[in-house]
């Protein structure tokens, strides 16, 4: 029932859009539904000579996966260390607190200066965007591991290493996963934003900017819809894993 209720607004928006589009009757301002749907329905055919929707989406996804994986590979071990050893936390804390409020896109000029135009720059921006939510959640998750759980482990004979692998990591996993989910969402925003900037010659962000330059508003809207749908599908994937593996978090008592 609630799922069905959630569909009402999108349908109303689509109807409203179509009505306004007919009234305005200006494809350079708001194109009609009929001009957007064909673009979405032929995802494998070339769009404005930039490659197909799928090609561009794959390029964006590839970039995100690189940057995101790199961020996770740095943030999770660092976060576990910081959560477990206050020395590490004290060492990194201030630096990270200064860097954290800087929006990922503020790094663009520096990224271009360091890595030139290209995938390295984009991956760097995504890395910056994803690392903080993953790191902060990992630290939180590790700190939230109950002391009793750790002590049970040591009384049962766990070494320092085993405490980490058998107690701390599984205990913190749900929170770390939340960090990954949030981090991925930000990565996805970062890749599209980075592709809007001069430089890239592929990707969904590039495609919609290119369409803007040609006045093809219907392609822009189709691109936005694809960006939204991919974000949604990935997020649902994260949620499904959360429910399957980390459902215990909500059920503790």
């Amino acid at each position, binding site marked *: 029932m609630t799922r069905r209720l959630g569909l009402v607004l999108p349908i109303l928006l689509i109807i409203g859009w179509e009505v306004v589009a007919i009234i305005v009757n200006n494809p350079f301002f708001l194109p009609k539904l009929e001009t957007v749907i064909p673009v979405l329905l032929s995802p494998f055919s070339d769009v404005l000579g930039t490659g197909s929707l799928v090609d561009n989406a794959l390029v964006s996804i590839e970039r995100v996966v690189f940057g995101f994986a790199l961020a996770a590979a740095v943030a999770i071990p660092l976060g576990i260390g910081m959560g477990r050893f206050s020395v590490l936390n004290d060492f990194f804390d201030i630096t990270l607190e200064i860097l954290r409020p800087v929006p990922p896109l503020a790094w663009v000029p520096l990224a271009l200066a360091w890595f030139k135009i290209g995938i390295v720059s984009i991956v760097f921006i995504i890395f910056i965007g994803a690392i903080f939510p993953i790191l902060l959640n990992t630290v939180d998750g590790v700190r939230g591991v109950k002391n009793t759980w750790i002590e049970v482990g040591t*009384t049962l004979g766990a070494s320092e290493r085993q405490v980490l692998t058998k107690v701390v990591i599984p205990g913190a996993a749900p929170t770390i996963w939340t960090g990954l989910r949030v981090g991925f969402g930000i990565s996805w925003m970062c890749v599209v934003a980075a592709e809007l900037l001069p430089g890239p010659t592929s990707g969904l962000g590039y495609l919609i900017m290119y369409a803007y330059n040609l006045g093809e508003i219907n392609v822009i809207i189709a691109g936005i819809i694809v960006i939204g749908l991919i974000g949604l599908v990935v997020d649902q994937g994260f949620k499904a894993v959360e429910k399957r593996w980390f459902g*215990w978090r909500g059920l503790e008592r």
Partner: protein
Amino acid sequence: MTLSINDVSKTFVSDDAETIDALSHISLSVNNEEFICILGPSGCGKTTLLRIVAGLESASSGSVSVDGIPVTRPSPKMAMIFQEYSLYPWRTVEENVMLGLELRGVNKPDRVTAAEKFLDLVGLKGFERRYPHELSGGMRQRVAVARALAIEPSILLMDEPFGALDAQTRNRMQYELLRIWEKTKKTILFVTHSVDEAVFLADRIVVLTQRPGRIKEIVTIPSVRPRERTSDEFGQIRRHLLDMIKEESDLVQ
């Protein structure tokens, strides 16, 4: 197996350099296969004493030794059952019980066999695949007991394990514990603040004073078992213990 507590005192120093004397000059020599109850008012240092014996906390002065060897960290000869629920919510009942053996590198089939044996002993056959949140409080403490027994310790340290249970469940758990104790021949150090529980279970009851806990008296209970909770003999012992505790609590007023 001999456990001896030699002149143990413990002073905590809080962050603002305030000191709290928790235990004062505790000496106790525990015989093999003996059931000792430690009885005392809330905050008198019972948990602290047990944690020092377990090697989770160090004494400010004095020492604890098992078979003549000083305890400085958790030892496989002892297993602890904590005052609060301590099962790992992400592990099934069976996986919780198997943890100690897993940490020692025992292979899976042997772990499963052991888990089966100890779950059977605590009356939880058939619950192997359940998760802790699916169990009642009493069942969870049984799992904790099975998990402790699975590493085959000679000493069981139990910190008010039945404190959170209703009276009926608690009585049943006391019976069961005696049955397990007779079957497995463990030495048990059992903390409680229930006079009734102590009189029902113990060979000897160590009565502690208000904080800082000192030994007020050690009461030996006639070794008949099972005990009639309402018999005259135990009624007298109970009265004696209650008087002592009242004396202690009157001191604070």
